């Protein structure tokens, strides 16, 4: 069992090394490696379904209770299998996508490395090991986004993605410190400490999940991340990495009971609606999908808050299949038209019916049209949130929005366009991969009960009420779009600018910070430098001047005066030296008389 755990993480890494050094055969090696690497997770899944649980690790600081390692339980097995499967499919797709790419070995090796890190994250035993995987996927994502060196916008987008998620990761660090301080261990399944430490734990985890899963107001990085190659978008930014936030919430179920989960639920619900609005206003196909991802992840947050682990995980898996399908199809269109902007893609679907069919399957799933997979999973969320009126409303609105924002590009793809499509090289692998995921989207609806058993959690179920509401929302959304024909300009504008989050950050975070910095600098210059330090200098000079003046007029004058006095005295004394003998004699007589008087007085007294 331990071997399987380590193979799940190690095989993708080895495959990455092999692919990187394989030269022209890299893509083939990568596909083989990924398929091979998908096997151990499936074995783990089978074992976990049979009830087996295991851990394997090293004691890093045993005296302080810190270990690193991997574990096998229901949740980790499910996640690992998902990641492995989607990874293998996307790598198969990459063989076709990167057919004409000169740096293909680097690309596929990057994807495989990411896969290894992601497996490490979902199989982690304890928060410390999870943190390692968490950070690694963040760094690798940055590298993968900026893969295309010709794109000048890519590096900035990559850095933005990294910094936003990294800033949110502070929450994870704070939570871990607080957890360790309160409980003495960072293993899974602990209880939240009381008081301030507990608050830090809860808030920290929620903030970290928000950043990684592109929830409002930290959602802007996801749109920028679409500058990366489409396989990257498919693997990282729809199915796996962004889902890590949801995984964290599900894993920390025990630590987040009570108000932290409430916060997470609200964040998710609001983001679900906002993401949908953003998706409606985009002009780029991949950015529409990015907004959609944000929205769907918000739904997963709500699911984690109300429905329990199975509900959230169910939607995670179903969404992964459907969104990845959409991305893979979009990648084919991208190669055919040379761009992903909606203007260039007009009529691409009509020119390539196969891909269009695959696209449609994915769209139907994400839009929650029964009987596709994501319908069941999303409906479970609707059913679970029936107890919370606010969340229910928001979730339903998100559902309507999903229908609308997916219908819009679908119509663009279908409507006849003037542009010609070029046949994409490597078409077959791409189509095969997309078909695999599309097929999964069709059947994954059956996953609900097995998943609940596996996770030892309440079964996600759909009630007639929720099903009816969901379908109604879909129709409402689609109908609104058809009626309105186009999104109102004002809304589109705001949506395109990511609902002015950037402006908000600039006004509320950046501006005060810079103002404070300017004021402090001015304080430093005026008060400290000019005032205190220069003032000290000036004061010292003044003191020196006063001292010198005192010395000149006082001391020197005193000394000079004394000398002058002595000179005058000497002059007076000189007059005694008259040279006249008789005067000397007279003075002698005076002296003698004086002495005699003194003696006489002494004798008498």
């Amino acid at each position: 069992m331990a071997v399987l755990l380590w193979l799940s993480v190690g095989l993708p890494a080895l495959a990455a090394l092999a692919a990187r050094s394989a030269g022209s055969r890299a893509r083939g090696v990568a596909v083989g490696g990924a398929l091979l690497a998908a096997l151990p997770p499936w074995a783990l899944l089978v074992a976990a379904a049979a009830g087996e649980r295991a851990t394997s690790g090293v004691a890093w600081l045993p005296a302080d209770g810190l270990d690193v390692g991997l574990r096998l339980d229901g949740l980790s097995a499910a996640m690992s299998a998902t990641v492995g499967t989607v990874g293998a499919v996307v790598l198969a797709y990459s063989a076709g996508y990167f057919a004409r790419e000169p740096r293909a070995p680097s690309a596929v090796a990057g994807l495989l490395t990411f896969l290894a890190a992601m497996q490490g994250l979902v199989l982690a035993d304890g928060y410390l090991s999870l943190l390692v995987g968490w950070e690694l996927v963040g760094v690798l994502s940055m590298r993968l986004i900026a893969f295309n060196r010709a794109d000048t916008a890519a590096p900035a987008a990559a850095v933005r993605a990294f910094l936003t998620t990294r800033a949110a990761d502070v929450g994870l660090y704070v939570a871990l410190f607080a957890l360790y301080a309160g409980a003495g261990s960072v293993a899974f399944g602990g209880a939240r400490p009381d008081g301030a430490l507990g608050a830090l734990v809860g808030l920290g985890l929620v903030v970290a999940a928000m950043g990684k899963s592109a929830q409002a107001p930290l959602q802007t990085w996801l749109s920028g991340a679409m500058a990366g190659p489409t396989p990257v978008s498919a693997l990282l930014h729809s199915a796996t990495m962004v889902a890590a936030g949801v995984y964290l919430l599900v894993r920390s179920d025990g630590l987040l009971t009570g108000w932290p989960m409430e916060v997470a639920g609200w964040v998710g619900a609001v983001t679900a609606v906002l993401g949908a609005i953003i998706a409606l206003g985009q002009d780029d196909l991949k950015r529409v999908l990015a907004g959609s991802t944000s929205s769907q992840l918000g739904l997963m947050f709500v699911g984690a808050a109300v429905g329990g682990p199975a509900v959230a995980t169910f939607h995670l898996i179903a969404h992964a299949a459907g969104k990845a399908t959409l991305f893979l199809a979009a990648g084919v269109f991208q190669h055919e038209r040379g761009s992903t902007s909606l203007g260039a893609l007009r009529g691409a679907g009509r020119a390539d019916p196969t891909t269009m069919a695959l696209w449609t399957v994915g769209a139907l799933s994400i839009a929650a049209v029964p009987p596709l997979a994501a319908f069941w999973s999303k409906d479970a969320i609707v059913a679970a949130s029936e107890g919370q009126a606010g969340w229910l409303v928001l979730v339903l609105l998100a559902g309507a929005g999903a229908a609308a924002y997916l219908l819009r590009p679908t119509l663009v793809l279908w409507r006849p366009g003037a542009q010609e499509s070029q046949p994409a090289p490597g078409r077959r692998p791409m189509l095969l991969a997309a078909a695999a995921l599309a097929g999964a989207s069709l059947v994954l609806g059956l996953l609900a009960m097995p998943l609940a058993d596996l996770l030892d959690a309440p079964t996600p179920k759909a009630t007639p009420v929720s099903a009816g509401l969901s379908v109604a929302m879909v129709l409402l959304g689609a109908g609104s779009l058809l009626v309105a024909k186009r999104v109102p300009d004002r809304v589109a504008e705001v949506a395109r600018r990511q609902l002015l989050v950037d402006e908000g950050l600039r006004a509320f975070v950046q501006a005060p910070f810079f103002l404070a910095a300017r004021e402090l600098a001015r304080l430093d210059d005026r008060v400290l430098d000019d005032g205190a330090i220069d003032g000290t200098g000036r004061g010292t000079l003044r003191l020196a001047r006063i001292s010198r003046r005192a010395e000149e007029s006082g001391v020197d004058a005193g000394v000079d005066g004394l000398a002058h006095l002595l000179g005058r005295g000497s002059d007076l004394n000189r007059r005694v030296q008259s040279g006249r003998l008789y005067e000397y004699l007279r003075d002698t007589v005076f002296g003698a008389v004086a002495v005699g008087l003194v003696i006489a007085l002494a004798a008498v007294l």
Partner: protein
Amino acid sequence: MISLPVVLGVGAVMFGIGLYGVLGQTNAIMVMMGVELMLGASMLNLIGFMRYAWPDAASGAFFVLIVMTLMALEAAVGFALVISVFRNRRTAELDDLTDLKG
């Protein structure tokens, strides 16, 4: 009737006269004469002491002897000096001999 105070009184007067001469005369030789008078007064006093107060002390007489010798010496050397000065300066007036003026 002649007692010690009388003798001393006479000596005092003579001393005063000698002093008048020393302070008041311009010529160096006249000053020397004044000194002679003063020394003579001191001799008189000594004799008075010897006669009236301490008759057994012969050292008083010896003292008088010494003073007399001094008088002679002083006169001799003083004269030699005056001659020397007179040769150079053609004057023995104290008012003209002010080389020691400071």
